[in-house]
């Protein structure tokens, strides 16, 4: 199921949190060779995990992490503004309608449905909270991963070349995507809204979808 959990509430989900931070170590340190910090518990955590971000997590039936992404409003501290604004000519993105999405991570053997479910979760945040766009930082290999899950960002700026290239990009919200993402995730609209309501106590607004 999809969970929406603030960092300060992760302690109530120890197994989920533990497996999420371990899977992040596997993906970002071991597979992508990013220069990330891993603590004594084998958890990949950075400073943005400490400022109470909102995580969207796919929780498997056994209670473990299946995939996740991390969200922060760009009006507060973000990775893009703190460390990567030189990629976009020094521009600071501080806009209420844009949230930052980082640490998109899939557990080993997670299939396309998990990736689609995470995209669905991101889309529900946009729909429910009037977020127009997500901004993120990613390297060349992540672009491939995003393309595979059918959610390629619009690249705003890049530094470096080839495998070492790092980019800042934007994801737009298109309500028409929701139907396709639901289908790819193998989930119904009702169950997604139920999970959202479970986390936030209210349904994302019932918006009329534009006819395709």
């Amino acid at each position, binding site marked *: 199921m999809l969970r929406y959990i*603030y960092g*300060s*509430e992760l*302690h*109530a989900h120890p197994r989920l949190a533990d497996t999420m931070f371990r899977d992040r170590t596997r993906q970002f340190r071991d597979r992508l060779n990013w220069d990330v910090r891993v603590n004594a518990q084998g958890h990949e955590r950075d*400073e943005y995990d*400490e*400022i*109470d971000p*909102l995580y969207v997590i796919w929780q498997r039936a056994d209670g473990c992490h299946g995939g996740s992404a991390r969200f*922060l*409003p760009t*009006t*507060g*501290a973000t990775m893009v503004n703190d460390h990567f604004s030189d990629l976009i000519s020094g521009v600071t993105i*501080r806009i*209420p*309608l844009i949230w930052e999405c980082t640490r998109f991570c899939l557990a080993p053997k997670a299939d396309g449905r998990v990736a689609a479910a995470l995209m669905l979760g991101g889309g529900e*945040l946009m729909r*429910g*909270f*009037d977020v127009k766009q997500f901004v993120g930082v990613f390297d060349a290999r992540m672009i491939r991963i995003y393309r595979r899950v059918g959610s390629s960002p619009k690249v705003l700026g890049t530094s470096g070349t080839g495998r070492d290239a790092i980019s800042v990009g934007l994801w737009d919200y298109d309500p028409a995507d929701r139907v396709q993402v639901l289908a790819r995730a193998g989930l119904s609209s009702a169950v997604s809204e139920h999970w959202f309501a479970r986390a*936030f*106590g*209210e349904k994302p*607004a019932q918006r009329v979808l534009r006819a395709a």
Partner: protein
Amino acid sequence: MGMKANLRQLLITLDRATELSALQDTIVALRDHYDVAHMVYHWVSADGEQYGCGTYSPAWVQHHVEQDYLRIDPVIIGCFQRFHPVDWKALDWSGKAAIKFRSEAVAAGVGNQGYSIPIRGPRGQFALFSLSSTASDDEWAVFTERNRRDLLLCAHSFNQKALEIEVNRMPEQVKPLSGREVDVLTLLAMGYSRGQVAQTLHISEHTLRAYVEGARFKLGATNTMHAIARAVAEGLIVLGGAARNARGDWPGRSDAAE
């Protein structure tokens, strides 16, 4: 579908403002524009100091402060350090203190419905923009659905202006403490000896010293006592231990729920 012309005009006026009094004038006009019972912009600093503007009666505001309702108010507890808009119905109003608070709020004319937009600003700044009303559930659902996008922009316009005018209120940049550093400082602040803290956390005193040093460095403190004082002032630790893990992260939440 654009914003209504008079709303846009109000936000332009707000944007040009250079005095705090303009925030108050704008929020009154905005309340009238939306025809709701009340509207409040509220900057809450980590030490519980409040600042803002709004249309609540002065008597209610004073009562809120005197009673230290920051510790009880489900809106503040439920929204503190969050960043998604919240209908007040989604909050926890079940505690004894919350029930009493609610009846007092209704009696003070706050209304039975509400919608709050929490805002995270730079360097851990936190503010809340709220509207309240006496509408029915259905009316309120229609209202918030129709206006939530504009309200989000209003909320951030107020915060932007408040940040501009009140630059001096911005906290100095403080690096966030690690979980272990918070644990150590919290226990020390509670009066545990170093030995007791090490034992409680199952770490050596040597390791404990490393955590204290780490925290001291991040806080720019000269000694352990100074580090504790700064951590408390910055809201990085909360006295009372268990309160740190309380849902909503508001000092005193657990006391209030009893």
